[in-house]
């Protein structure tokens, strides 16, 4: 990804760190200021929130409808600041400890059977997870804990201490891993589960709004440079009308719109055919069978009303 817009930290910045950081806590990356990146258009408010989270050394919790670019924002923060991104994809079976380290007991047992390594050295079987690597790194990093709500309900609570103290102990070796530089932690959530209050109290929260038509045209333009303007306008109008239909179980989001336009282009659908009768390739936009009759009824309704 192009790094042209990445700002190098400005030491003469008037807002250099004045925060009363206690001597034991890891250095905060206050001097870093994020202003977006080449492939991500960031509103002023978003920049302020991200920079406040960086200055505070608090995790930034991102929430929003699926397809509003939560993961993309984390990538952009990393590129914009010129820092490496460590991604931790959370699954339903993920345990909090796995983000810190994994002790590969099976490999050790295997090695003990065939005796080609010194199994007495446990350290070689300890593999650091994304968060563990970020703590151990000498330079600032960006850690993305992706879809934190997928895991067990207790998962965020299990991470509270580590995120607060930025340090953890590996009982198997007695090693203590403490962050030299506070990593920038970004946490994304689809809101499938409510997150615990104790966890929410410690994070900086940002809700990614669904893009309005103006921003959406910019997003579409990024994906389809040189798109026929009539088609883009027609498709957007129909898309926002569809989103406004009451009672949909799953409203189409940005990624569905992008897919839809791609299909329309691939089949050479003329712009005039949108907006009359049934929409072509509706299945790209509406993914639930139950939603289809609702959409059809709603469209019939508006057409009758138009006459």
């Amino acid at each position: 990804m192009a790094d042209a817009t990445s700002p190098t930290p400005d030491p003469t910045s008037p807002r250099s760190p004045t925060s009363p950081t206690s001597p034991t806590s890891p250095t905060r990356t206050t001097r870093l200021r994020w202003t977006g990146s080449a492939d991500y258009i960031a509103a002023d408010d978003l920049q302020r929130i991200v920079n406040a989270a960086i200055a505070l050394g608090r995790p930034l919790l991102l929430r929003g409808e699926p397809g509003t670019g939560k993961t993309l924002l984390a990538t952009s923060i990393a590129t914009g600041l010129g820092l490496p991104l460590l991604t931790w994809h959370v699954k339903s079976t993920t345990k909090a400890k796995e983000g810190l380290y994994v002790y590969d007991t099976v490999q050790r047992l295997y090695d003990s059977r065939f005796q080609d390594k010194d199994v007495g050295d446990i350290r070689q079987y300890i593999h650091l997870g994304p968060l563990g690597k970020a703590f151990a790194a000498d330079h600032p990093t960006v850690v993305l804990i992706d879809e934190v709500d997928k895991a067990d309900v207790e998962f965020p609570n299990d991470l509270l201490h580590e995120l607060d103290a930025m340090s953890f102990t590996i009982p198997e070796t007695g090693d203590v891993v403490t962050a030299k530089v506070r990593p920038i932690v970004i946490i994304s959530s689809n809101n499938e589960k409510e997150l615990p209050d104790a966890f929410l109290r410690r994070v900086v929260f940002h809700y990614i709004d669904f893009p309005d038509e103006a921003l959406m045209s910019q997003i579409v333009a990024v994906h389809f440079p040189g798109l026929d303007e009539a088609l883009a306008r027609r498709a957007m109008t129909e898309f926002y009308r569809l989103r406004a239909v009451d009672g949909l179980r799953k409203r189409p989001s940005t990624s569905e719109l992008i897919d839809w336009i791609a299909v329309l282009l691939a089949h050479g659908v003329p712009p005039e055919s949108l907006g009359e009768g049934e929409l072509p390739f509706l299945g790209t936009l509406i993914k639930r069978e139950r939603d289809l009759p609702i959409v059809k009824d709603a469209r019939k309704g508006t057409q009758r009303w138009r006459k």
Partner: protein
Amino acid sequence: MAQVSSSLLFGRLFFGLRGAGIPVGVTEWMTLMEALASGAVEPSLDALYAVGRAVLVKHEAHFDTWDQVFAASFGDAVMPVALKEELLDWLANPIERPGLSPEELAALETLSLDELRQRFLERLDEQTERHDGGNKWIGTGGTSPFGHGGNNPAGVRVGGAGGGRQAIQVAGERRYRDYRSDRILDTRATALALRKLRRLGRVEGEPELDIEETIDQTCKQAGELTLEFRPPRENQARVLLLMDVGGSMTPYTRLVETLFSAASGLNHWKKLEAFYFHNCPYSKVWRSMSSGESEPLAEILKSRTPETFLLLVGDASMAPSELLSPSGAIDWFERSETPGLVWLHRLRTHFARSAWVNPMEPAHWRGYTVELIAKLFPMFPLTVDGLGQCVEHLVKKTPPPPVADLDPRLFRGGW
């Protein structure tokens, strides 16, 4: 900005947020102060708005309230107060009042819906404090057309449970509907909570690796790897789901639908059976409301093993007579001589592992019948957390229920 006025302004913001019902604590507040002191936030109102919201407000549902409080603190808008909540809280705490004679009821004014709405709003404007009893103000246990738990032939009920005394013996159209639906993805969280409801037992089948035993045997063989296998475990749990439908449950249809489709889509238990009832189960429960197929409750008590997990879903809110009188059922055609509470007691005694799931908010579990039922069944809210606790309660071994006799005084006449 002078030091004094700025601290006043910030105090207004903090207490304004708390007053409007946003759960802001000192931790978040100090974090905001730290952010401002660190210099990472430019000294402008726009920046304070964005960063303040990110630090203090943790749910998008509260963003609107934040906007209002912010406008009131730094502009000249009116500070919002969680008025509606207060009103609902107080009305949800009804005072039971002796029944009125038909003459008295007839004497009360009967109004059309529009008139009622109009007067409700007028009276809400006039009224400034809590009010119980009486015949004019909005309150509980009164004869005014407005409020909760009162007696008026044409009343506006404010919050709380539906179906006052006037609803007794509804023989009209039965608005029961089956809750079955195929919403699989929306029900994820519910399904996750229910997954923990299991009773594992060893069954025949493809053997699996027994890690504990393998470690033990390997140690005994001085490090020589010895693999041990055992038959797989399978969930032996049987679940019986009894659901209240129609009437006062209508607002919760979607919630119960979610629960039911999560349960039926789980495919995780040995057996899941679902039945429906209206307000309280009596001599029979329905397998499907549309076909009218029913099964006698006595038969269920006889043929289902006591090991079955029993889950009752309902708001437990009804006229006391529906629970306590012979033939108390709200449905004209249901003529069970045995009061509903006795049927519930039989269920509770037979099924040692049982619980009641209530879709109402726990703050509103204050009616007479809710309290009676909550004494019999542990009651949990129909939320992901509530279900989790419910499942926890069902799974762990609980002592058999006290076989306390039902207090005969409960069933005195006059309901």
